[in-house]
Protein backbone atom coordinates (compact mmCIF):
# COMPACT_ATOMS: atom_id res chain seq x y z
CA UNK A 1 0.00 0.00 0.00
CA UNK A 2 1.86 3.08 -1.26
CA UNK A 3 1.16 6.48 0.27
CA UNK A 4 3.09 8.20 -2.44
CA UNK A 5 4.54 7.12 -5.77
CA UNK A 6 7.86 8.43 -7.01
CA UNK A 7 8.68 8.85 -10.69
CA UNK A 8 9.64 5.23 -11.21
CA UNK A 9 6.58 3.92 -9.39
CA UNK A 10 4.35 6.36 -11.26
CA UNK A 11 5.82 5.13 -14.51
CA UNK A 12 5.26 1.55 -13.44
CA UNK A 13 1.68 2.42 -12.56
CA UNK A 14 1.09 3.93 -15.98
CA UNK A 15 2.43 0.75 -17.56
CA UNK A 16 0.14 -1.37 -15.40
CA UNK A 17 -2.78 0.82 -16.40
CA UNK A 18 -1.85 0.47 -20.07
CA UNK A 19 -1.66 -3.28 -19.75
CA UNK A 20 -5.05 -3.44 -18.03
CA UNK A 21 -6.70 -1.53 -20.86
CA UNK A 22 -4.99 -3.67 -23.49
CA UNK A 23 -6.11 -6.84 -21.72
CA UNK A 24 -9.72 -5.73 -21.74
CA UNK A 25 -9.87 -4.47 -25.31
CA UNK A 26 -12.42 -7.12 -26.29
CA UNK A 27 -14.80 -6.07 -23.53
CA UNK A 28 -14.60 -2.50 -24.79
CA UNK A 29 -15.18 -3.55 -28.38
CA UNK A 30 -18.24 -5.53 -27.46
CA UNK A 31 -19.64 -2.63 -25.45
CA UNK A 32 -19.07 -0.36 -28.46
CA UNK A 33 -20.65 -2.90 -30.82
CA UNK A 34 -23.80 -2.71 -28.71
CA UNK A 35 -24.29 1.04 -28.94
CA UNK A 36 -21.49 2.46 -31.09
CA UNK A 37 -19.37 1.39 -34.06
CA UNK A 38 -17.37 -1.43 -32.50
CA UNK A 39 -13.91 0.09 -32.61
CA UNK A 40 -13.45 1.31 -29.05
CA UNK A 41 -11.40 -1.69 -27.89
CA UNK A 42 -9.04 -1.65 -30.84
CA UNK A 43 -8.61 2.10 -30.49
CA UNK A 44 -7.85 1.96 -26.79
CA UNK A 45 -5.43 -0.92 -27.33
CA UNK A 46 -3.58 1.01 -30.03
CA UNK A 47 -3.32 4.03 -27.77
CA UNK A 48 -2.05 2.20 -24.70
CA UNK A 49 0.31 0.01 -26.71
CA UNK A 50 1.67 3.31 -27.97
CA UNK A 51 1.91 4.53 -24.39
CA UNK A 52 3.88 1.46 -23.32
CA UNK A 53 6.23 1.85 -26.26
CA UNK A 54 6.71 5.56 -25.60
CA UNK A 55 7.41 5.07 -21.89
CA UNK A 56 9.98 2.41 -22.78
CA UNK A 57 11.57 4.39 -25.60
CA UNK A 58 12.28 7.54 -23.57
CA UNK A 59 11.82 7.06 -19.84
CA UNK A 60 10.12 10.24 -18.65
CA UNK A 61 12.01 12.70 -16.49
CA UNK A 62 9.10 13.80 -14.36
CA UNK A 63 5.70 12.58 -13.35
CA UNK A 64 3.86 15.18 -15.34
CA UNK A 65 6.03 14.31 -18.34
CA UNK A 66 5.10 10.66 -17.88
CA UNK A 67 1.39 11.49 -17.93
CA UNK A 68 1.89 13.76 -20.92
CA UNK A 69 3.72 10.98 -22.75
CA UNK A 70 0.79 8.67 -22.18
CA UNK A 71 -1.62 11.38 -23.27
CA UNK A 72 0.31 12.10 -26.45
CA UNK A 73 0.44 8.41 -27.35
CA UNK A 74 -3.31 8.02 -26.88
CA UNK A 75 -4.01 11.19 -28.77
CA UNK A 76 -2.02 10.11 -31.78
CA UNK A 77 -2.64 6.34 -31.76
CA UNK A 78 -6.22 5.90 -30.58
CA UNK A 79 -7.95 8.44 -32.77
CA UNK A 80 -11.72 8.90 -32.72
CA UNK A 81 -13.64 10.34 -29.81
CA UNK A 82 -11.80 8.26 -27.22
CA UNK A 83 -8.38 9.39 -28.48
CA UNK A 84 -9.26 13.03 -28.08
CA UNK A 85 -10.88 12.53 -24.67
CA UNK A 86 -8.40 10.19 -22.99
CA UNK A 87 -5.50 12.01 -24.62
CA UNK A 88 -6.83 15.20 -23.10
CA UNK A 89 -7.41 13.54 -19.72
CA UNK A 90 -3.77 12.52 -19.42
CA UNK A 91 -2.24 15.55 -21.09
CA UNK A 92 -4.26 18.17 -19.26
CA UNK A 93 -4.52 16.10 -16.09
CA UNK A 94 -0.72 16.11 -15.96
CA UNK A 95 -0.94 19.70 -14.74
CA UNK A 96 -2.03 18.22 -11.39
CA UNK A 97 1.53 16.89 -11.01
CA UNK A 98 3.38 19.94 -12.33
CA UNK A 99 6.44 20.63 -10.21
CA UNK A 100 5.80 17.59 -7.99
CA UNK A 101 8.06 14.58 -7.81
CA UNK A 102 5.57 12.28 -6.18
CA UNK A 103 1.97 11.35 -6.63
CA UNK A 104 0.17 11.79 -3.35
CA UNK A 105 -3.47 12.02 -2.44
CA UNK A 106 -3.72 15.71 -3.23
CA UNK A 107 -1.97 15.65 -6.58
CA UNK A 108 -3.96 12.58 -7.56
CA UNK A 109 -7.20 14.45 -6.94
CA UNK A 110 -5.79 17.48 -8.71
CA UNK A 111 -4.95 15.29 -11.73
CA UNK A 112 -8.53 14.13 -11.97
CA UNK A 113 -9.94 17.57 -11.48
CA UNK A 114 -7.74 19.20 -14.11
CA UNK A 115 -8.28 16.30 -16.49
CA UNK A 116 -12.03 16.40 -16.09
CA UNK A 117 -12.19 20.13 -16.66
CA UNK A 118 -10.28 19.86 -19.92
CA UNK A 119 -12.32 16.86 -21.03
CA UNK A 120 -15.60 18.69 -20.44
CA UNK A 121 -14.36 21.55 -22.56
CA UNK A 122 -13.02 19.38 -25.33
CA UNK A 123 -16.08 17.17 -25.49
CA UNK A 124 -18.56 19.99 -25.16
CA UNK A 125 -20.59 17.76 -22.89
CA UNK A 126 -22.05 17.80 -19.43
CA UNK A 127 -22.76 14.94 -17.08
CA UNK A 128 -25.67 12.71 -18.01
CA UNK A 129 -24.96 12.47 -21.75
CA UNK A 130 -23.67 8.90 -21.43
CA UNK A 131 -19.96 9.49 -21.95
CA UNK A 132 -16.59 9.04 -20.33
CA UNK A 133 -17.48 12.05 -18.24
CA UNK A 134 -20.13 10.09 -16.41
CA UNK A 135 -17.41 7.87 -14.94
CA UNK A 136 -14.77 10.59 -14.61
CA UNK A 137 -16.86 13.22 -12.89
CA UNK A 138 -18.05 11.06 -9.98
CA UNK A 139 -14.51 9.69 -9.71
CA UNK A 140 -13.00 13.17 -9.53
CA UNK A 141 -15.58 14.28 -7.00
CA UNK A 142 -15.08 11.20 -4.85
CA UNK A 143 -11.29 11.58 -4.92
CA UNK A 144 -11.56 15.17 -3.85
CA UNK A 145 -14.08 14.36 -1.12
CA UNK A 146 -12.07 11.40 0.21
CA UNK A 147 -9.53 13.99 1.29
CA UNK A 148 -7.16 11.37 2.67
CA UNK A 149 -4.10 9.44 1.60
CA UNK A 150 -3.38 8.29 -1.92
CA UNK A 151 -4.80 4.76 -1.47
CA UNK A 152 -8.04 6.13 -0.03
CA UNK A 153 -8.38 8.66 -2.80
CA UNK A 154 -7.57 6.11 -5.48
CA UNK A 155 -10.12 3.72 -4.01
CA UNK A 156 -12.74 6.45 -3.92
CA UNK A 157 -12.00 7.34 -7.56
CA UNK A 158 -12.20 3.72 -8.72
CA UNK A 159 -15.44 3.15 -6.86
CA UNK A 160 -16.85 6.41 -8.13
CA UNK A 161 -16.03 5.42 -11.68
CA UNK A 162 -17.68 2.01 -11.30
CA UNK A 163 -20.81 3.58 -9.88
CA UNK A 164 -20.69 6.01 -12.78
CA UNK A 165 -20.50 3.18 -15.32
CA UNK A 166 -23.53 1.56 -13.73
CA UNK A 167 -25.36 4.86 -13.92
CA UNK A 168 -24.68 5.19 -17.65
CA UNK A 169 -26.94 2.19 -18.22
CA UNK A 170 -29.86 4.38 -17.23
CA UNK A 171 -28.84 7.24 -19.52
CA UNK A 172 -30.01 8.04 -23.04
CA UNK A 173 -26.98 8.98 -25.13
CA UNK A 174 -27.10 12.53 -26.48
CA UNK A 175 -23.64 12.74 -28.07
CA UNK A 176 -21.27 10.42 -29.94
CA UNK A 177 -22.30 7.49 -32.12
CA UNK A 178 -24.79 6.13 -29.58
CA UNK A 179 -26.87 9.32 -29.85
CA UNK A 180 -28.86 7.99 -32.79
CA UNK A 181 -30.08 5.06 -30.69
CA UNK A 182 -32.03 7.37 -28.42
CA UNK A 183 -34.04 5.28 -25.98
CA UNK A 184 -32.50 2.13 -27.42
CA UNK A 185 -29.21 3.04 -25.73
CA UNK A 186 -30.86 2.44 -22.37
CA UNK A 187 -29.68 -0.65 -20.52
CA UNK A 188 -26.21 -0.57 -22.05
CA UNK A 189 -23.21 0.89 -20.23
CA UNK A 190 -21.18 3.52 -22.07
CA UNK A 191 -17.99 2.05 -23.58
CA UNK A 192 -15.90 5.14 -22.85
CA UNK A 193 -17.07 5.18 -19.25
CA UNK A 194 -16.01 1.53 -18.94
CA UNK A 195 -12.56 2.50 -20.18
CA UNK A 196 -12.34 5.26 -17.61
CA UNK A 197 -13.25 2.78 -14.88
CA UNK A 198 -10.65 0.27 -16.09
CA UNK A 199 -8.01 2.99 -15.91
CA UNK A 200 -8.97 4.15 -12.42
CA UNK A 201 -9.39 0.64 -11.06
CA UNK A 202 -5.97 -0.29 -12.44
CA UNK A 203 -4.46 2.77 -10.77
CA UNK A 204 -5.98 1.81 -7.46
CA UNK A 205 -4.91 -1.83 -7.86
CA UNK A 206 -1.33 -0.72 -8.44
CA UNK A 207 -1.35 1.63 -5.50
CA UNK A 208 -2.93 -0.98 -3.25
CA UNK A 209 -0.42 -3.63 -4.32
CA UNK A 210 2.71 -1.50 -3.98
Amino acid at each position, binding site marked *: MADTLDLSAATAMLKAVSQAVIDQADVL*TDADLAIGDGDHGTGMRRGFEGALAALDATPPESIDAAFKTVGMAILSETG*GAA*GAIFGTLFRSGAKGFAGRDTIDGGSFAAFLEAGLEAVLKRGGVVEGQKTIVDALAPAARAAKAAAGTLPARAKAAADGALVGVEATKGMVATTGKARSLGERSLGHPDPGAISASIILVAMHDFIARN
Partner: protein
Amino acid sequence: MARPGKKMLNDPKKVVAEMIEGLVLANDGRIAKLPHHNAIVRTDLPDSKVALLIGGGSGHEPLFHGFVGRNMGDGAACGQVFAAPSPDIIVAAAKTVHRGKGVLFLYGNYAGDNMNFDMAAEILQEDEDIEVRTVRITDDVAAAPPERVHDRRGIAGDVYAIKVTGGAAAELDSLAEVERVARKAVANIRSMAVAVSAGSIPETGKLTFELADDEIEIGMGAHGEAGVHRQKLTTADSIADQMMDKILADLPFGRGDEVALMINNLGATTMMEMLIVNRRVRQILDREGIRVHRSDVGTWVTTQEMAGLSITLMKLDEELKHYLDLPAESLGYSRM
Protein backbone atom coordinates in the same frame (compact mmCIF):
# COMPACT_ATOMS: atom_id res chain seq x y z
CA MET B 1 -22.96 -11.38 -34.90
CA ALA B 2 -22.82 -14.91 -36.21
CA ARG B 3 -21.27 -14.53 -39.64
CA PRO B 4 -17.62 -13.54 -39.33
CA GLY B 5 -16.10 -10.97 -41.65
CA LYS B 6 -14.34 -12.78 -44.49
CA LYS B 7 -11.67 -10.61 -45.96
CA MET B 8 -8.45 -10.74 -47.91
CA LEU B 9 -6.02 -9.01 -45.54
CA ASN B 10 -2.52 -9.40 -44.26
CA ASP B 11 -1.96 -8.21 -40.70
CA PRO B 12 -5.38 -6.86 -39.61
CA LYS B 13 -3.59 -4.25 -37.47
CA LYS B 14 -1.83 -2.85 -40.53
CA VAL B 15 -4.80 -2.46 -42.85
CA VAL B 16 -4.71 1.32 -42.92
CA ALA B 17 -0.98 1.59 -43.53
CA GLU B 18 -1.07 -1.03 -46.28
CA MET B 19 -4.17 0.46 -47.80
CA ILE B 20 -2.55 3.88 -48.03
CA GLU B 21 0.46 2.36 -49.77
CA GLY B 22 -1.86 0.74 -52.29
CA LEU B 23 -3.86 3.93 -52.63
CA VAL B 24 -0.86 6.09 -53.43
CA LEU B 25 0.30 3.58 -56.05
CA ALA B 26 -3.18 3.47 -57.57
CA ASN B 27 -3.04 7.23 -58.12
CA ASP B 28 -0.22 6.95 -60.67
CA GLY B 29 1.95 9.62 -59.07
CA ARG B 30 -0.77 12.21 -58.54
CA ILE B 31 -0.72 11.89 -54.76
CA ALA B 32 1.95 11.18 -52.16
CA LYS B 33 1.90 9.99 -48.59
CA LEU B 34 3.51 12.10 -45.88
CA PRO B 35 6.61 10.28 -44.66
CA HIS B 36 5.58 9.95 -41.01
CA HIS B 37 1.81 10.21 -41.04
CA ASN B 38 -1.25 8.51 -42.49
CA ALA B 39 -2.02 11.48 -44.67
CA ILE B 40 -1.93 11.99 -48.40
CA VAL B 41 -1.53 15.13 -50.48
CA ARG B 42 -1.64 16.06 -54.14
CA THR B 43 1.75 16.15 -55.82
CA ASP B 44 0.59 18.70 -58.38
CA LEU B 45 -0.61 21.41 -56.00
CA PRO B 46 -0.42 24.90 -57.50
CA ASP B 47 1.90 27.36 -55.75
CA SER B 48 -0.87 29.50 -54.46
CA LYS B 49 -4.35 28.46 -53.57
CA VAL B 50 -6.72 28.13 -50.67
CA ALA B 51 -6.07 24.63 -49.35
CA LEU B 52 -8.87 22.12 -48.86
CA LEU B 53 -8.14 19.43 -46.30
CA ILE B 54 -10.57 16.58 -45.92
CA GLY B 55 -10.39 13.45 -43.83
CA GLY B 56 -11.90 11.10 -41.32
CA GLY B 57 -11.85 7.52 -40.24
CA SER B 58 -10.85 4.85 -42.75
CA GLY B 59 -13.10 1.99 -43.75
CA HIS B 60 -15.44 4.13 -45.87
CA GLU B 61 -13.33 3.94 -49.02
CA PRO B 62 -13.14 5.59 -51.48
CA LEU B 63 -14.18 8.33 -49.01
CA PHE B 64 -12.04 10.36 -48.00
CA HIS B 65 -8.62 9.36 -49.26
CA GLY B 66 -9.97 8.58 -52.71
CA PHE B 67 -11.20 12.14 -53.19
CA VAL B 68 -7.85 13.89 -53.31
CA GLY B 69 -7.08 15.29 -56.72
CA ARG B 70 -7.68 18.11 -59.16
CA ASN B 71 -10.75 20.16 -58.18
CA MET B 72 -11.28 17.86 -55.20
CA GLY B 73 -9.44 17.72 -51.84
CA ASP B 74 -5.84 18.90 -51.72
CA GLY B 75 -5.01 16.44 -48.99
CA ALA B 76 -6.64 13.95 -46.65
CA ALA B 77 -5.94 12.98 -43.06
CA CYS B 78 -6.67 9.29 -42.63
CA GLY B 79 -7.68 7.78 -39.31
CA GLN B 80 -7.79 4.13 -38.41
CA VAL B 81 -10.93 2.17 -39.34
CA PHE B 82 -13.98 4.13 -38.15
CA ALA B 83 -11.76 6.35 -35.97
CA ALA B 84 -11.14 10.03 -36.60
CA PRO B 85 -7.54 10.91 -37.48
CA SER B 86 -5.47 12.23 -34.60
CA PRO B 87 -4.49 15.90 -34.41
CA ASP B 88 -0.87 15.25 -35.39
CA ILE B 89 -1.94 13.68 -38.69
CA ILE B 90 -4.26 16.58 -39.41
CA VAL B 91 -1.62 19.16 -38.48
CA ALA B 92 1.01 17.52 -40.66
CA ALA B 93 -1.36 17.30 -43.63
CA ALA B 94 -2.53 20.90 -43.21
CA LYS B 95 1.02 22.21 -43.07
CA THR B 96 1.86 20.32 -46.24
CA VAL B 97 -1.08 21.54 -48.31
CA HIS B 98 -0.99 25.11 -47.00
CA ARG B 99 -0.04 27.56 -49.74
CA GLY B 100 -0.20 30.79 -47.83
CA LYS B 101 -3.95 31.32 -48.16
CA GLY B 102 -5.26 29.33 -45.24
CA VAL B 103 -6.76 25.89 -44.95
CA LEU B 104 -10.40 24.86 -44.99
CA PHE B 105 -11.21 21.74 -42.96
CA LEU B 106 -14.17 19.88 -44.47
CA TYR B 107 -15.31 16.66 -42.84
CA GLY B 108 -18.27 14.71 -41.51
CA ASN B 109 -19.86 15.85 -38.28
CA TYR B 110 -18.91 13.22 -35.68
CA ALA B 111 -17.80 13.85 -32.10
CA GLY B 112 -14.43 12.21 -32.72
CA ASP B 113 -13.72 14.14 -35.90
CA ASN B 114 -14.88 17.40 -34.41
CA MET B 115 -12.60 17.07 -31.40
CA ASN B 116 -9.52 15.94 -33.32
CA PHE B 117 -9.87 18.50 -36.12
CA ASP B 118 -10.53 21.23 -33.54
CA MET B 119 -7.39 20.35 -31.63
CA ALA B 120 -5.45 20.43 -34.88
CA ALA B 121 -6.95 23.80 -35.79
CA GLU B 122 -5.91 25.22 -32.41
CA ILE B 123 -2.36 23.96 -32.88
CA LEU B 124 -2.13 25.29 -36.43
CA GLN B 125 -3.40 28.68 -35.44
CA GLU B 126 -1.40 29.02 -32.23
CA ASP B 127 1.88 27.37 -33.16
CA GLU B 128 2.05 27.75 -36.92
CA ASP B 129 0.09 30.90 -37.56
CA ILE B 130 -1.93 29.13 -40.25
CA GLU B 131 -5.49 30.32 -40.65
CA VAL B 132 -8.01 27.49 -40.46
CA ARG B 133 -11.74 27.49 -41.08
CA THR B 134 -13.97 24.50 -40.44
CA VAL B 135 -17.11 23.29 -42.22
CA ARG B 136 -18.80 20.13 -40.99
CA ILE B 137 -20.98 18.05 -43.25
CA THR B 138 -24.43 17.29 -41.82
CA ASP B 139 -26.45 15.77 -44.63
CA ASP B 140 -28.04 12.78 -42.85
CA VAL B 141 -31.67 13.70 -42.24
CA ALA B 142 -32.19 10.51 -40.26
CA ALA B 143 -29.77 11.50 -37.52
CA ALA B 144 -31.69 14.35 -35.91
CA PRO B 145 -34.60 16.70 -36.60
CA PRO B 146 -33.94 19.84 -38.67
CA GLU B 147 -33.72 22.09 -35.62
CA ARG B 148 -30.76 20.03 -34.41
CA VAL B 149 -28.69 20.14 -37.58
CA HIS B 150 -25.52 20.20 -35.47
CA ASP B 151 -26.43 16.67 -34.36
CA ARG B 152 -26.59 15.36 -37.91
CA ARG B 153 -23.92 13.11 -39.37
CA GLY B 154 -22.11 13.44 -42.67
CA ILE B 155 -22.79 10.55 -45.04
CA ALA B 156 -22.79 10.36 -48.85
CA GLY B 157 -23.40 14.10 -49.12
CA ASP B 158 -19.69 14.33 -48.33
CA VAL B 159 -19.04 13.67 -52.00
CA TYR B 160 -20.98 16.66 -53.28
CA ALA B 161 -19.67 18.85 -50.48
CA ILE B 162 -16.09 17.94 -51.41
CA LYS B 163 -16.74 18.23 -55.13
CA VAL B 164 -18.24 21.73 -54.89
CA THR B 165 -15.74 22.99 -52.33
CA GLY B 166 -12.85 21.48 -54.28
CA GLY B 167 -13.96 23.50 -57.27
CA ALA B 168 -14.33 26.65 -55.19
CA ALA B 169 -10.91 26.14 -53.62
CA ALA B 170 -9.42 25.85 -57.11
CA GLU B 171 -10.97 29.07 -58.37
CA LEU B 172 -11.62 31.40 -55.45
CA ASP B 173 -8.80 33.29 -53.89
CA SER B 174 -9.94 33.77 -50.30
CA LEU B 175 -10.47 31.32 -47.50
CA ALA B 176 -13.61 33.14 -46.42
CA GLU B 177 -15.09 32.79 -49.90
CA VAL B 178 -14.30 29.10 -50.11
CA GLU B 179 -15.81 28.65 -46.67
CA ARG B 180 -18.93 30.48 -47.81
CA VAL B 181 -19.37 28.15 -50.78
CA ALA B 182 -18.77 25.08 -48.62
CA ARG B 183 -21.43 26.23 -46.15
CA LYS B 184 -23.85 26.89 -48.96
CA ALA B 185 -23.24 23.42 -50.37
CA VAL B 186 -23.71 21.74 -46.99
CA ALA B 187 -26.87 23.75 -46.32
CA ASN B 188 -28.37 22.41 -49.54
CA ILE B 189 -27.48 18.72 -49.27
CA ARG B 190 -29.77 16.10 -47.74
CA SER B 191 -29.24 12.33 -47.60
CA MET B 192 -30.69 9.21 -46.10
CA ALA B 193 -29.44 5.62 -46.07
CA VAL B 194 -30.98 2.19 -45.79
CA ALA B 195 -29.01 -0.82 -44.52
CA VAL B 196 -29.75 -4.34 -45.74
CA SER B 197 -26.91 -6.19 -44.04
CA ALA B 198 -23.96 -5.33 -41.83
CA GLY B 199 -20.29 -4.78 -42.53
CA SER B 200 -17.45 -5.97 -40.33
CA ILE B 201 -14.41 -4.24 -38.89
CA PRO B 202 -11.19 -5.76 -40.29
CA GLU B 203 -9.37 -5.92 -36.98
CA THR B 204 -12.09 -7.65 -34.98
CA GLY B 205 -13.91 -9.45 -37.79
CA LYS B 206 -17.15 -8.58 -36.04
CA LEU B 207 -20.29 -7.35 -37.77
CA THR B 208 -21.19 -3.89 -36.52
CA PHE B 209 -24.87 -4.72 -36.05
CA GLU B 210 -27.40 -7.48 -36.52
CA LEU B 211 -30.34 -7.57 -38.89
CA ALA B 212 -32.62 -10.54 -39.45
CA ASP B 213 -32.62 -12.10 -42.91
CA ASP B 214 -35.84 -10.32 -43.81
CA GLU B 215 -35.17 -7.00 -42.09
CA ILE B 216 -33.77 -3.66 -43.19
CA GLU B 217 -33.05 -0.49 -41.25
CA ILE B 218 -33.99 2.83 -42.77
CA GLY B 219 -31.85 5.79 -41.79
CA MET B 220 -28.85 3.82 -40.58
CA GLY B 221 -25.60 5.76 -40.23
CA ALA B 222 -22.24 5.21 -41.84
CA HIS B 223 -20.93 3.19 -38.91
CA GLY B 224 -24.10 1.25 -38.33
CA GLU B 225 -25.56 3.89 -36.04
CA ALA B 226 -29.23 3.24 -35.42
CA GLY B 227 -31.63 4.59 -38.00
CA VAL B 228 -35.19 5.82 -38.05
CA HIS B 229 -36.71 2.41 -37.92
CA ARG B 230 -36.30 -1.23 -38.60
CA GLN B 231 -38.81 -3.02 -40.79
CA LYS B 232 -39.35 -5.98 -43.06
CA LEU B 233 -37.58 -5.91 -46.39
CA THR B 234 -40.19 -4.62 -48.83
CA THR B 235 -39.96 -3.54 -52.45
CA ALA B 236 -37.35 -1.19 -53.86
CA ASP B 237 -40.09 1.27 -54.76
CA SER B 238 -41.61 1.40 -51.30
CA ILE B 239 -38.19 1.79 -49.68
CA ALA B 240 -37.36 4.63 -52.06
CA ASP B 241 -40.72 6.23 -51.33
CA GLN B 242 -40.09 6.22 -47.59
CA MET B 243 -36.64 7.69 -47.96
CA MET B 244 -37.68 10.35 -50.44
CA ASP B 245 -40.56 11.46 -48.23
CA LYS B 246 -38.11 12.30 -45.48
CA ILE B 247 -35.50 13.86 -47.74
CA LEU B 248 -37.86 16.04 -49.75
CA ALA B 249 -39.69 17.35 -46.72
CA ASP B 250 -36.52 18.25 -44.91
CA LEU B 251 -34.94 21.09 -46.90
CA PRO B 252 -37.69 21.20 -48.26
CA PHE B 253 -37.16 20.51 -51.96
CA GLY B 254 -40.00 21.70 -54.15
CA ARG B 255 -41.40 22.37 -57.59
CA GLY B 256 -38.98 24.15 -59.89
CA ASP B 257 -35.88 23.18 -57.92
CA GLU B 258 -32.86 21.88 -59.74
CA VAL B 259 -30.86 19.18 -58.00
CA ALA B 260 -27.92 16.86 -58.25
CA LEU B 261 -28.92 13.29 -57.41
CA MET B 262 -26.65 10.63 -55.99
CA ILE B 263 -27.45 6.98 -55.33
CA ASN B 264 -24.56 5.66 -53.28
CA ASN B 265 -23.66 2.05 -52.54
CA LEU B 266 -22.88 1.38 -48.86
CA GLY B 267 -20.69 -1.51 -49.97
CA ALA B 268 -22.18 -4.77 -51.12
CA THR B 269 -25.33 -3.72 -52.93
CA THR B 270 -25.60 -4.47 -56.63
CA MET B 271 -25.71 -1.69 -59.19
CA MET B 272 -28.84 -3.38 -60.48
CA GLU B 273 -30.63 -2.54 -57.24
CA MET B 274 -29.27 1.00 -57.26
CA LEU B 275 -30.50 1.61 -60.78
CA ILE B 276 -33.92 0.23 -59.91
CA VAL B 277 -34.05 2.63 -56.97
CA ASN B 278 -32.82 5.43 -59.23
CA ARG B 279 -35.75 4.76 -61.52
CA ARG B 280 -38.20 5.23 -58.67
CA VAL B 281 -36.49 8.32 -57.31
CA ARG B 282 -36.76 9.92 -60.74
CA GLN B 283 -40.45 9.09 -60.93
CA ILE B 284 -40.91 10.84 -57.61
CA LEU B 285 -38.86 13.87 -58.62
CA ASP B 286 -40.81 14.11 -61.87
CA ARG B 287 -44.05 14.04 -59.94
CA GLU B 288 -42.80 16.79 -57.65
CA GLY B 289 -41.58 18.94 -60.52
CA ILE B 290 -37.94 18.77 -59.45
CA ARG B 291 -35.40 18.78 -62.27
CA VAL B 292 -32.26 16.63 -62.10
CA HIS B 293 -29.28 18.56 -63.38
CA ARG B 294 -26.83 15.74 -62.87
CA SER B 295 -26.87 12.12 -61.64
CA ASP B 296 -24.31 9.95 -59.90
CA VAL B 297 -24.92 6.26 -59.28
CA GLY B 298 -22.00 4.36 -57.81
CA THR B 299 -19.87 3.53 -54.81
CA TRP B 300 -18.39 6.44 -52.90
CA VAL B 301 -19.16 6.31 -49.20
CA THR B 302 -19.16 2.80 -47.80
CA THR B 303 -19.23 1.03 -44.47
CA GLN B 304 -17.00 -1.87 -45.34
CA GLU B 305 -19.14 -4.66 -46.83
CA MET B 306 -22.43 -3.28 -45.52
CA ALA B 307 -25.23 -3.82 -48.03
CA GLY B 308 -27.58 -0.94 -48.58
CA LEU B 309 -27.60 2.40 -50.29
CA SER B 310 -28.16 6.07 -49.68
CA ILE B 311 -29.99 8.74 -51.63
CA THR B 312 -28.57 12.28 -51.70
CA LEU B 313 -30.08 15.41 -53.18
CA MET B 314 -28.31 18.75 -53.45
CA LYS B 315 -30.35 21.78 -54.39
CA LEU B 316 -28.44 23.81 -56.93
CA ASP B 317 -28.06 27.42 -57.89
CA GLU B 318 -25.82 28.70 -60.65
CA GLU B 319 -22.81 28.96 -58.39
CA LEU B 320 -23.13 25.44 -56.97
CA LYS B 321 -23.73 24.08 -60.48
CA HIS B 322 -20.61 25.75 -61.73
CA TYR B 323 -18.35 24.19 -59.10
CA LEU B 324 -20.10 20.84 -59.22
CA ASP B 325 -19.68 20.63 -62.98
CA LEU B 326 -15.96 21.34 -63.04
CA PRO B 327 -14.10 18.25 -64.19
CA ALA B 328 -12.69 16.17 -61.37
CA GLU B 329 -9.96 13.63 -61.24
CA SER B 330 -9.39 11.36 -58.30
CA LEU B 331 -9.26 7.64 -57.67
CA GLY B 332 -12.72 7.61 -56.15
CA TYR B 333 -14.53 10.17 -58.26
CA SER B 334 -13.69 11.22 -61.80
CA ARG B 335 -15.91 13.01 -64.26
CA MET B 336 -15.17 15.01 -67.36
